[in-house]
């Protein structure tokens, strides 16, 4: 545990009891700013995500939620700002290195690798595979045992996500909901410590939504940290421990689901009012 990594710029609170390791946020974002031309897409002063929690990121379309994901995961570069994952500064690192450090994202529009089997979709996500190096790829004995272990792990994971019967099918034949499940299962094959899910239930039928939510809750109970973008407020209210609301690139509310849902600024910017008497 990197407990002695408290040197990051934040000034300590007035009388700090030494925080237990789990209180050090797994993800810390500081003064992150991204502009597209004259439009400020993301302008986040400070955002911490605590280890082992489920945090929902909500807000109207164009609030900068997906851009924030893209920045944090290295898919896009900010004008300024820094962010720390697991106590390490990962600002400006390329996407594949951020992924390798244990933060794996999924996409709003699922990226199933259509012309590969469901099993191959799972296997490709395995981290640090020896056979992925050009020269060792040519020498199967160097990677065969690792591959077998990976296949076993994929089989367990596919069973857990009820995709085991589809293992040898092309991923392109899956339904939209199954693709969401596959993407989640595939992300887990990379053994992340934090998942960033971009609209995990968008376009998914209600039965599969329940299944995805059950999986997400089970992952948290296993110690996983989850940050997810979601528009379905029922989903947000039912699984998240904390809700962050963004609008026009900024964080306008941050707190418990009930507090955020009752926040005037959130109601104005996102939720809207019920018919007033």
């Amino acid at each position, binding site marked *: 545990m990197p407990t002695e990594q408290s040197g990051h710029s934040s000034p300590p609170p007035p009388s700090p009891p030494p925080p237990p390791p789990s209180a050090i946020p797994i993800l810390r974002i500081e003064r992150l700013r991204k502009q597209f031309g004259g439009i400020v897409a993301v302008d986040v002063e400070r955002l911490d995500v605590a280890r082992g929690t489920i945090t929902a990121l909500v807000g109207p379309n164009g609030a900068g939620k997906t851009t924030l994901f893209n920045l944090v995961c290295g*898919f896009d570069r900010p004008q300024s700002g820094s962010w720390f994952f697991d106590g390490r500064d990962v600002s400006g690192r390329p996407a*594949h*290195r951020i992924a390798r450090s244990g933060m794996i994202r999924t996409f709003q529009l699922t990226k199933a690798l259509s012309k590969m089997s469901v099993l191959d979709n799972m296997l*490709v996500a395995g981290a640090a595979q020896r056979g992925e190096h*050009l020269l060792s*790829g040519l020498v199967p004995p160097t990677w065969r045992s690792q591959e077998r272990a990976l296949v076993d792990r994929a089989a367990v994971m596919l069973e857990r996500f009820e995709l085991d019967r589809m293992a040898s099918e092309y991923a392109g034949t899956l339904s939209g909901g199954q693709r969401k499940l596959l993407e989640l299962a595939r*992300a887990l094959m990379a053994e992340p410590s934090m998942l960033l899910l971009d609209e995990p239930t968008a376009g998914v039928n209600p039965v599969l939504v329940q299944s995805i939510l059950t999986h997400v809750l089970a992952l948290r109970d296993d110690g996983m940290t989850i940050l997810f973008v979601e528009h379905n407020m029922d989903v947000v209210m039912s699984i998240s421990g904390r809700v962050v609301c963004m609008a026009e690139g900024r964080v306008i509310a941050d707190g418990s689901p009930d507090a955020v849902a009752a926040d005037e600024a959130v109601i104005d910017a996102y939720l809207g009012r019920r018919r007033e008497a």
Partner: protein
Amino acid sequence: MDIVAVLADSFRTAFGPIAAAYALAAVGLNLHFGYTGLLNFGHVAFMMTGAYGVAVTVDQGGPLWLGFIVGVVGAVVLGLLFGLPTLRLRVEYLAIVTIAAGEVLRTLLRSGGESSLTRGVFGIQRFADDFFAANPFDRGSYGWGRFAYSERGLWVLVIGWSLVALVTLVVVQLARSPWGRVLRAIREDEDAARSLGKNVFVYKLQSLVIGGVLGALAGMLLAIDRQSVNPDTFLPVLTFAVFAIVILGGPGSRLGPVVGAIVYWFVIQFTDRFLREAIAVGWIPESVIDSTDVGAVRFVLVGAMLMGLIIWRPQGLLGRREEVLLDAD
């Protein structure tokens, strides 16, 4: 009409040294296009590099083996030149750079005079004497009846197809390894591969360089078979002939490029010989096609055949139909 002679001639070409060279080039392009999804429209540049690597080295007094090394190293350098600036960008940029670079290289090679390194439009001849001096086959004709090769043709053919077998084995082994799995993931969606921790840029560069080296080997084989190199044999259309072979065989299939090359050259030679015979015996009146048109007409037929293939068998001869149907989403 001597149909036996037409068929024998067609098979001779289909299994001949030139078909072997095209198969080599197609195995490389299949690695780019079929496995990795790279749009390399300048494969001919790699072939030129291989051909001229051998020709110039020997012409300057170097040994043949050094020429091979020069050609391979040249292809690696060319692959890096193409890839380093473009592979971080969208696929189209590689296509633009490669199609232009092929012509730039050809223009460069033909720009000098007879005394220049590449001898300009005159080209270089008789640089592969050492290769033929090593021919273990005695003088004579090898084959059955009209399906026969000279000892010289047989030597190139044996080396050529052995090389095809070797590189096919290597590429198939690579494609089946986790390395090849990453390439296919990149072809399907490179952002997905990136999000799973794969260094997409490095894999694309590796694929481009390896496929490019295979293109260079194809160029060497062509040059040695003809004992001659000339810039104007490396027109952009050569790249698209190799593309036709890859698509004919089925992009991303293991033996597709090899089968594609054989079928492609069979069809080219068969239509040519058949049309000529048909004109000679009067089946086709000279007023419709005369023998000078045959060269062009055969490519019209090849084009029509490719169109038919795309309509009725879009996966190519050895591709998987289900994969093509998935693209319909």
